[in-house]
């Protein structure tokens, strides 16, 4: 397993200067700027965050190929993992999607009405699919994990985290295609650059989001489920 290059004693500002995408994560985790020379340890104490998970998050944003070792985390980190995942869903739905939609409309305005409609339909399809996927997690997966935390893993439930191997591939493909289509086939409009920049940012963030779901949340819950089974 890869080791973390950041530690409790690393200054948060140094991590941020290296990874601009983490800025939006701070916002999602409710961390205010203006923290001076505070270290990761100090920030986590101040905001009541799980240090191991926060460091893992920094590392995943630093390098999306980083394979997190969920054994470094205890069940106590679960509520914060959920908090990050939910806050990210909110960020996509409340902030990025409306921005994308507006820039998208501006960029396709130059095209014929027919082409505009087809592209808008494609984008809508993507957005609805993504929101459906987030909804499923919020209504099935997260409540299950919360339930599991509440009863300390000792509860009977027909749902298991393994069922949450829902793949993200189709949604990812559409976003990727959107990028290709705008780069290769649509002449640029003033809004094109921001549109592409936002699509890239969304894609990068979703990639990290998926790493947290698949390589942090899932193994941790699996562990909780199996500990429970052994006790029975």
């Amino acid at each position, binding site marked *: 397993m890869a080791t973390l290059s950041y530690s409790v004693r690393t200054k948060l500002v140094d991590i941020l200067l290296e990874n601009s995408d983490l800025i939006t994560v701070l916002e999602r985790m409710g961390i205010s700027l203006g923290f001076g020379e505070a270290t990761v340890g100090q920030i986590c104490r101040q905001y009541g965050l799980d240090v191991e998970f926060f460091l893992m998050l920094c590392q995943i944003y630093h390098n999306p190929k980083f394979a997190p070792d969920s054994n470094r985390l205890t069940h106590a980190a679960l509520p914060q993992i959920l908090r990050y995942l939910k806050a990210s869903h909110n960020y996509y739905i409340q902030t990025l999607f409306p921005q994308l939609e507006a820039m998208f409309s501006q960029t396709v305005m130059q095209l014929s009405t027919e082409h505009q409609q087809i592209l808008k339909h494609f984008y809508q399809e993507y957005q609805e699919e993504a929101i459906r996927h987030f909804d499923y997690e919020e209504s099935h997966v997260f409540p299950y994990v919360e339930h599991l935390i509440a009863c300390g893993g000792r509860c009977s439930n027909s749902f298991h985290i393994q069922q949450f191997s829902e793949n993200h591939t189709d949604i990812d493909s559409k976003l990727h295609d959107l990028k*290709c289509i705008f780069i290769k086939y649509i002449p640029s409009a003033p809004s094109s650059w921001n549109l592409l920049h936002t699509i890239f940012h969304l894609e990068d963030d979703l990639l990290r989001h998926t790493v947290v779901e698949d390589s942090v949340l899932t193994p941790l819950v699996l562990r909780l489920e199996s500990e429970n089974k052994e006790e029975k």
Partner: protein
Amino acid sequence: MKPSARPHVLIVTPAYVVGRGVFESLSALSKYHVVDPIGSLADVTPERLKRMRPSVILLDPSELSPSDRTQPHAILPADLNIPVVALVTTLTDPNTLAAFDGAINIYSTQKQMETTIDNALQQGSLSAAVSEKTTELSAREQTILCHVARGLSNKEIADALNLSVFTVTTHRKNITRKLGIRSISGLTIYAILNHLVEPNEL
């Protein structure tokens, strides 16, 4: 059935009868997609051209200002390279005509018009948006892509083209590899933007 991108032909002439006549003659050939003639070059804005993306423009030289007579391509935005064929309605200086990608006049036969336009298209094919893009895919791949856009499954495409499902799958993999587009809806958009299928066919 071989779906090919039908070249889009744009006619610009103040001579209404000539415009209609050329429109009808070319439409009758059904190998072109002929756009309704435009009466004045002033209405052909760069934005409009970018939107329409014609494959060839038939332009009445009398529409060009005297300073532009020998450079008809100056009417195009810098990033569009579309062949411009002269549609001659009045006596025109041969120097002017030489600057066009071919010329037709009011005495041209349907066959002559077709030959002139096809030559111009061929010359412009390196840069004309549509033809350039569609060369990315082989004719067979284009056919399969059209079927995919129309919502046919691999099995249905295989049956329609007398191929094995395996061959269709291979073609589809190659299409995705060449275009970098993976989803069916993304491929459909590619097919529409490149005039391989018309939106109303779907």
